[in-house]
């Protein structure tokens, strides 16, 4: 019983952390129409930044500043935001492919540098020995994990509320206006490049926050955690949930993470030994098929974006995209 409970706690924690990342991506893609092909770079920047700043010193390794946790976390977010700012600044005024390619490139380079810069990042071995916050008061058992889960859920709720309010605010309207018709937005005196950059960096910081929590949860991060597949998983979560809809994003995260864990478990339990070597390949094909299949048959996702139309003379009318309002 305790086993099931602690597994559920573990599963929910990871799914909730990934939900935060999906929410960040939703701000970029769902609300602003920015293609981020390097979600892992922001995620990894958050995780590595936090662990390097907050971790204990290691022999022959730079870093290990043992900063107070919130400070380390802040540093991680700053790292994620700074990286996004650099890429966004260079690409957001060009045609949209450039952002897709450059973000993809940043993710490749990020993983590569983390793997090789051994004296800062621990190389392939990753960063070990991180002391999780409040460990002394709460112990390391189920109590700690429950408390951690609750904190993650609180963060998720805060991010959710923040993004929901952002979406209905004038700024959210501006984002959608730029997504739908950049020229029209510009003709109204808006500066699309600057607004896009702001949305891109904000989304990346949120993804970085998810990465920081992930690193904190495992008290460990290595190049294995920043492989491109994570980008694909987070994308699949968003497209299944429905781009533009924050509730859908969270639902998608839980669904896909559930399906991923279940398929991994089922393959290791029932598949013959020879096939098990290919578990990763089979799961990757499934993720790819989810992405392509959703685009072909239900591009709006399971929970489509609810478009809010402000009408003159007050009163808002809500309509879903499925009903034909685009």
């Amino acid at each position, binding site marked *: 019983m305790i086993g099931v409970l602690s597994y559920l706690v573990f599963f929910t924690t990871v799914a909730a952390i990934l939900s935060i990342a999906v929410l960040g991506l939703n701000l970029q893609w769902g609300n602003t129409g920015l293609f981020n092909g390097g979600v892992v770079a922001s995620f990894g920047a958050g995780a590595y930044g936090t662990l390097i700043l907050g971790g204990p010193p290691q022999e022959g390794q730079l870093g290990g500043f043992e900063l107070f946790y919130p400070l380390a976390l802040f540093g991680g977010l700053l790292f994620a935001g700074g990286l996004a700012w650099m890429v966004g600044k*260079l690409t957001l005024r060009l045609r949209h492919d450039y952002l897709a390619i*450059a973000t993809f490139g940043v993710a490749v380079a990020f993983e590569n540098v983390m793997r090789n810069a051994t004296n800062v990042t621990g190389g392939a071995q990753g960063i070990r020995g991180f002391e999780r916050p409040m460990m002394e008061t709460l112990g390391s058992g189920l109590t700690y994990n429950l408390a951690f889960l609750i904190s993650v859920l609180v963060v998720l709720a805060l991010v959710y509320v923040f993004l929901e309010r952002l979406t209905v605010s004038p700024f959210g309207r501006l984002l959608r206006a730029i997504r739908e018709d950049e020229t029209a937005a510009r003709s109204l005196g808006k500066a699309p490049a600057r607004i896009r950059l702001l949305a891109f960096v904000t989304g990346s910081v949120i993804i970085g926050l998810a990465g920081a929590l992930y690193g904190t949860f495992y008290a460990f991060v290595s190049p294995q955690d920043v492989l491109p597949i994570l980008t694909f998983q987070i994308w699949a979560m968003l497209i299944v949930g429905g781009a533009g809809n924050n509730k859908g994003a969270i639902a998608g995260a839980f669904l896909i993470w559930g399906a991923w864990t279940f398929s991994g478990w089922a393959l290791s339990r029932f598949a013959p030994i020879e096939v098990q070597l290919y578990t990763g390949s089979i799961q990757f094909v499934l993720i790819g098929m989810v992405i392509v299949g959703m685009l072909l048959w239900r591009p709006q996702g399971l929970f489509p974006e609810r478009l809010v139309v402000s009408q003159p003379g007050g009163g808002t009318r809500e309509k879903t995209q499925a009903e034909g309002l685009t």
Partner: protein
Amino acid sequence: MIQHLVDGILVGSFLSLGAIGLTMAMHILRFANFSHAELLSIGAYSALVFDKLFESLLPILAEKIGPLSMTGALAISIVLSMAITGLSAVLIDRFIFQRVRQKGEELSMVFASFGMALIIRNVIGLVFGLSAELYSQDIAFAMVVSRDPLLLVKPDQVFVLIAALVLMFILHLVLSRTTFGFSLRAVAENPSLAQVHGVNLKRMIAAVWIIGGGLGAVAGIFYGLSYQITPVMGRDLVLPIFAATIVGGIGSVYGAVLGGFIVGIAANLALVILPSGYSPSVPFLMILAVLLLRPHGLFGEART
């Protein structure tokens, strides 16, 4: 130093071939195709299959041609593999990209290509296994071109470079001297206007995929001849090829050729100052440098 430069030129020859198809598709269909590098894998693996098939059917074809590790069987396989890969590219477009194109916007296509890359790469891994394959098990000895400075070149590499240049020259003739080439450029400039003038848009799109797939297949086979064939070669090649198109300017075929050589040479020269572990990051640095200095590339035009 000289060795790195020569190696870079050789790497550049297959990067260019890969980048030509990518830049053409990006120009005409207006999306960054992340699954383009998987066409190189399809090409390399289908050539492997044909190669083994011909060698067992007609042992005489298993003879090596001159000093090359290439056999008659592989030479025929290259042609067949170009056809198969071109056809696969057309089919992928017909069944996936075209439908997404009709439903959504350009970025949905980028996204679909991400998914397709994942599917193709891992299906290849499932079919052929995850370990590396080689066209020839024999060790290809390098020729010593000069001893001081030491310069080693394999006969295969010389063949690859010459063959790549010949292919590029043929493509240049087709694009600049034939009606077909003019139609293709017209479609890229203005699809609706080209259609008004009686250019069949669908056929042109298919032609772009066939050219892209065919050249991609050759690039993949040459990569396999120079290194080895693995299911993840597409993953390793996608960023250098994108870098080549960005350096050359998206949409420019000549830019892609030059970009491929520049990226190949830069990645190899970087080994002089950087530890070799960092070489996967070099294409990204090139992209950053180009975006800073000349955002539309060497031959690109500003277009949104």
